[in-house]
């Protein structure tokens, strides 16, 4: 029974634990058993915190026995390994950071998960220093796609996608600078929330590009995203870039449906450079929502270019001393990008930041007339592992950077996005659609995601081959 409960969405697990139909300890033991069966070939976890998990589960069971009802009671989850976990070395996908001492305390969001009753199973594989869209890791092996293990999980929060789609956990936390939650959500067929920039505290996580880094949850249900988002919100003076805003009551808002929402499909840039499945998924979602309007995201090409320049320059500056002293210890693909980023003239970066201000204002104007924008999350289904080049609209280009071509412009503006998983008729793989809302209106994107889930247009089933595991 506990094994069956484990494969339910997080909200169902929490309900079962709170109703004492199953104990948090039983769910945790089922999760551990599943990790032991599946992790060896899928490379989702890099660090396991099993003793801690049992301890947290027992604490939840004790709380429930006393009549308390923590919202994420007994929900097994794990975090991208750039989140500090007390007692674990925060490797951030790297070899170099393994020389650091173990984290003394949990990151802010891990603390919040614990307070709300979730049970931490460990740290998850990721692309080195988050400079990645593949989920491939030079040091730890590639986190693989449970729907087809010959394919990428998507990155850089690759293990966060793998563990969820394989049913090892019911929720995961990731980070997203240019698409690193939205890409694995698309490739692994999951619901993923990249909140508004500045919404969630990043304290106690290893940075990539502080100007654009976001943290957020991934799950197998839109309702779960709302539960997780409510658990994670809140002011934290330890993150100097967090913006003080009143929290959204996501679990309440998500029930409101979509009546009255003005929903439009992004045209232009977002209807080019993709395989047919990317646009078919958007059209399926738009059709189900009755969205007939289109909208142009202004200067999307430049928005992506701006994110590209800021990311490479800022991340390279962060790693400069490591590039000087230990260049041979990086993942070669990441190292060469960082080396080039260290050489970017200052004027390029500052101009990119100025363009970002222009783009923010332009997007505010766009959202005066509409509430939600739909766009592809990735240009294609999950690629075969090791893919180096892709051909889009007749142009052959490097695969790695272009996996994120639809996600990158949106995060530059800091806009909240829920990626919803779509299974097209006859498809063997899922693909995601970005549901994009105005700044601070995660509730709107969640409402749309929930409607799509309710109507069976978006769904995040476990990988078929994992169901019998």
């Amino acid at each position, binding site marked *: 029974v506990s094994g069956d409960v484990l494969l339910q969405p997080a909200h169902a697990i929490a309900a079962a634990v709170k109703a004492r139909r199953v104990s948090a300890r039983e769910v945790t033991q089922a999760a551990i058993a599943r990790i032991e069966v599946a992790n060896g070939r899928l490379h989702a976890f890099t660090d396991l915190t099993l003793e801690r998990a049992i301890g947290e589960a027992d604490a939840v069971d004790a709380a429930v026995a006393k009549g308390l009802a923590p919202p994420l009671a007994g929900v097994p989850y794990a975090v991208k390994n750039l989140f500090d976990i007390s007692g674990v070395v925060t490797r951030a996908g790297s070899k170099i950071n393994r020389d650091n001492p173990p984290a003394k305390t949990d990151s802010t969001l891990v603390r919040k998960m614990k307070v709300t009753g979730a049970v931490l199973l460990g740290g998850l594989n990721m692309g080195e220093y988050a400079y990645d869209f593949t989920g491939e890791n030079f040091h730890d092996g590639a986190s693989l796609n449970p729907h087809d293990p010959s394919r990428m999980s998507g990155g850089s929060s690759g293990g966060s996608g793998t563990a969820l789609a394989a049913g090892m956990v019911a929720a995961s936390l990731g980070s997203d600078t240019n698409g690193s939650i939205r890409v694995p959500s698309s490739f692994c067929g999951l619901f993923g929330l990249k909140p508004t920039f500045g919404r969630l505290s990043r304290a106690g996580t290893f940075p990539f590009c502080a100007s654009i880094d976001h943290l957020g949850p991934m799950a197998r249900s839109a309702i779960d995203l709302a539960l997780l988002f409510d658990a994670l919100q809140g002011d934290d003076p330890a993150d100097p870039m967090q913006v003080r805003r009143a929290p959204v009551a996501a679990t309440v808002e998500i029930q409101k449906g979509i009546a009255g929402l003005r929903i439009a499909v992004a045209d232009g840039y977002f209807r080019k450079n993709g395989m047919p499945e990317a646009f078919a998924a958007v059209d399926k979602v738009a059709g189900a929502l009755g969205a007939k309007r289109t909208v142009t995201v202004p200067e999307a090409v430049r928005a992506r270019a*701006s994110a590209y320049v800021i990311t*490479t320059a800022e991340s390279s500056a962060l790693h*400069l001393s490591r590039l000087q002293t230990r*260049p041979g210890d990086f993942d070669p693909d990441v190292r*060469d990008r960082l*080396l080039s*980023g260290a050489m970017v003239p200052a004027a390029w970066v500052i*101009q990119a930041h100025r363009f970002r*201000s222009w783009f923010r204002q332009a997007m505010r104007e766009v959202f005066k007339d509409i509430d939600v924008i739909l766009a592809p999350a990735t240009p294609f289904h999950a690629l075969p592992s090791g893919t180096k080049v892709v051909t889009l609209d007749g142009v052959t280009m490097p695969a790695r950077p272009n996996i994120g071509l639809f996600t990158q412009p949106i995060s530059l503006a800091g806009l909240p996005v829920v990626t919803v998983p779509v299974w097209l008729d006859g498809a063997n793989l899922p693909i995601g659609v970005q549901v994009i809302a105005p700044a601070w209106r995660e509730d709107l994107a969640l409402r749309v995601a929930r409607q799509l889930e309710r109507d069976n247009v978006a769904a995040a089933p476990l990988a078929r081959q994992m169901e019998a595991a």
Partner: protein
Amino acid sequence: MTRPLDAKSHAEHMAKVLDLTILPEWQPTVVQHLATTAAAAELILSFPLDDHVEPAPVFEP
């Protein structure tokens, strides 16, 4: 930018400035990435921005 970046020369010069070691087998990829970044930068630099459009750093002293 008024003329295309000579990415190879720029990489060689900046490697010295920043005390970076770039092994010969790494160099073509580094140069290629620099050229890609330069192309992205050119898109931004060619976009007219009013003098009063400022970066938006969040810094609360």
